[in-house]
């Protein structure tokens, strides 16, 4: 039989339900493999002992009606987990142990999932390479010294390395889809308001969304079904009718209209990305989709807009880290001195940079020029999508303008790092669902992803298109376990 750790979530659930594998056997396999994979630096906090204990308890009293029966799952360390340390990749939360559970993780435990551990990420989810984490770089299992993407880099790496059957990330400007693209995995950012933000360490509240990351599209549909819920504890959670995403998953997308936005053909885009996109269009046609050229005229303004809106919201959200109620405290002569030293020592460079930008654009005299302007442009970006969706059901684009890069290659140039998110950021600004699926390889054999963007609340169409194209693309990751002793 195939190794337990290389099974898809769907197969693992099936085997557990048919009693061919016990929850404890599954937990042991993932714990063993995770123990042997410390070089990847995916875990910030391990929950291995507890996971093994809980899996035994599940086996003693199994409930096979649950959607994730006794399935061990590691999650991004941005989700608050009751009594389990939650750091958000930051020194300032190094010792923070929440006394409550995020809604998204609670939904997973309610359906039988068991916490394997907390996965590394960029500090406060600010980054595109996992290099801003206080807990160090994460290695991409695809090749040595390659970034796994970010901010959900620990999640994408652990998933691609088979250390967890599925995982969850958060996506503010591409933090699920870009790392999925860099590791040959699937990552879905749902519609804003689909998954509760309650208990997720806040970065930019009008953009943050949690979502599934998995080895294939079907697994993402299973996990989305579990984590997407209306939640009174999140003031922007939306009460809409959610599909049974996994049972409604179909490869029948005949006649579906897919838009190709000409503005995503950016100058300086490598040929291999252009070619991947062309191939993707052919795959979509093969699946029965109708391809339509569309225009999203304000695309090039999305990143500048994002780099006003996101830091502004971050500077406000991160004002709570003051060394008083929780987290790190540095000693200071006065209260203000204590605040300033705590925040200086507790935050890393990228987080400080974004707090500074955010504080600047919100400061007296600059608010209209920057923040208000950005909100207006955000409206124009959203209207572009609204108009496009009068003509098409979904949009197909590359996920990223390049494949994974080397650790250290872009860490000294913030703007070149930000350009990574050029294709993913507009989706967050407009609050839309978007998925990245692996679709090919570059000249170095590193994975490349395609993005499918949907209408608000239409995750089902996004999943169906991805599911259909996935079959035609037939991509398989080639992981050699190079990091193991």
């Amino acid at each position, binding site marked *: 039989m195939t190794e337990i750790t290389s099974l898809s979530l769907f197969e693992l659930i099936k085997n557990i339900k048919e009693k061919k594998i016990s929850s404890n056997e599954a937990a042991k396999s993932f714990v063993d493999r995770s123990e042997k994979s410390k070089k990847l630096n995916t875990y910030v906090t391990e929950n291995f002992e507890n996971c093994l204990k809980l899996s035994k308890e599940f086996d003693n009293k199994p409930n096979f009606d649950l959607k994730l029966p006794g399935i061990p799952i590691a999650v991004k360390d941005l989700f608050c987990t009751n009594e389990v340390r939650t750091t958000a990749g930051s020194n300032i939360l190094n010792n923070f142990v929440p006394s409550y559970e995020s809604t998204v993780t609670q939904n997973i435990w309610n359906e039988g999932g068991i916490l394997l551990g907390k996965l590394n990420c960029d500090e406060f989810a600010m980054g595109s390479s996992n290099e801003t984490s206080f807990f160090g770089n994460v290695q991409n299992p695809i090749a040595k010294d390659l970034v796994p993407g970010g901010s959900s880099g620990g999640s994408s790496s652990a998933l691609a390395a088979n250390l967890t059957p599925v995982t969850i990330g958060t996506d503010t400007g591409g933090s699920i889809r870009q790392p999925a693209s860099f590791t040959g995995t699937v990552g879905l950012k749902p519609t804003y308001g689909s998954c509760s933000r309650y208990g997720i360490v806040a970065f930019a509240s009008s953009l943050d969304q949690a979502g599934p990351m998995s080895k294939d599209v079907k697994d993402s549909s299973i996990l989305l079904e579990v984590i997407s819920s209306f939640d009174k504890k999140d003031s922007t959670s939306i009460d809409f009718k959610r599909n049974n995403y996994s049972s409604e998953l179909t490869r029948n997308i005949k006649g579906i209209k897919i838009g190709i936005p000409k503005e995503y053909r950016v100058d300086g885009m490598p040929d291999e990305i252009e070619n991947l996109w062309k191939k993707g269009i052919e795959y979509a046609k093969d699946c029965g989709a109708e391809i339509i050229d569309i225009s999203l005229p304000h695309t090039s303004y999305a990143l500048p807009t994002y780099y006003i809106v996101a830091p502004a919201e971050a500077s406000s959200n991160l004002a709570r880290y003051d060394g008083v109620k929780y987290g790190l405290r540095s000693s200071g002569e006065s209260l203000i001195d204590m605040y300033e030293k705590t925040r200086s020592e507790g935050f890393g460079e990228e987080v400080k*940079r974004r707090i500074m930008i955010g504080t600047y654009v919100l400061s007296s005299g600059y608010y209209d020029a920057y923040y208000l302007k950005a909100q207006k442009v955000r409206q*124009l970006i959203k209207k572009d999508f609204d108009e496009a969706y009068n003509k098409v059901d979904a949009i197909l684009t590359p996920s990223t303008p390049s494949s994974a890069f080397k650790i250290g290659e872009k860490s000294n140039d913030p703007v070149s790092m930000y350009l990574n998110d050029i294709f993913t950021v507009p989706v967050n600004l407009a609050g839309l669902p978007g998925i990245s699926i692996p679709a090919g390889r570059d000249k170095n054999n590193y994975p490349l992803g395609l993005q499918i963007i949907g209408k608000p609340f239409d995750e089902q169409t996004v999943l169906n298109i991805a599911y259909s194209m996935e079959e035609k693309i037939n991509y398989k990751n080639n992981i050699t376990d190079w990091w193991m002793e």
Partner: protein
Amino acid sequence: MVLCDIIFYHMTIDLKTVKHISKLARISLEEKKAEKLADDMNSIFEFIEKLNELKTENVEPLTSIAETTLRFREDKITSDNIREKILKNSPEKNDDFFVVPKVVE
């Protein structure tokens, strides 16, 4: 669309401004780091100034992507006594309070 579309008419953020912003943000800054930060912020703002190309006088700002009005809830206590849990993570506390450096002389 051009990847490196740099516009030069932005206002330069000088060292004095950086120090003022760091005061507002309550982050202490060493002189050397302040210079680096000024450089970084200037390159980011060069990039952001691209928005000036757009005329937006008649555009409504988008304040929330969820087109619903915020819900009201009843104003009642829903949690039990969680004082201990809340205080548990505090870097310095006495029995019932968070402790901070002396504020009043």
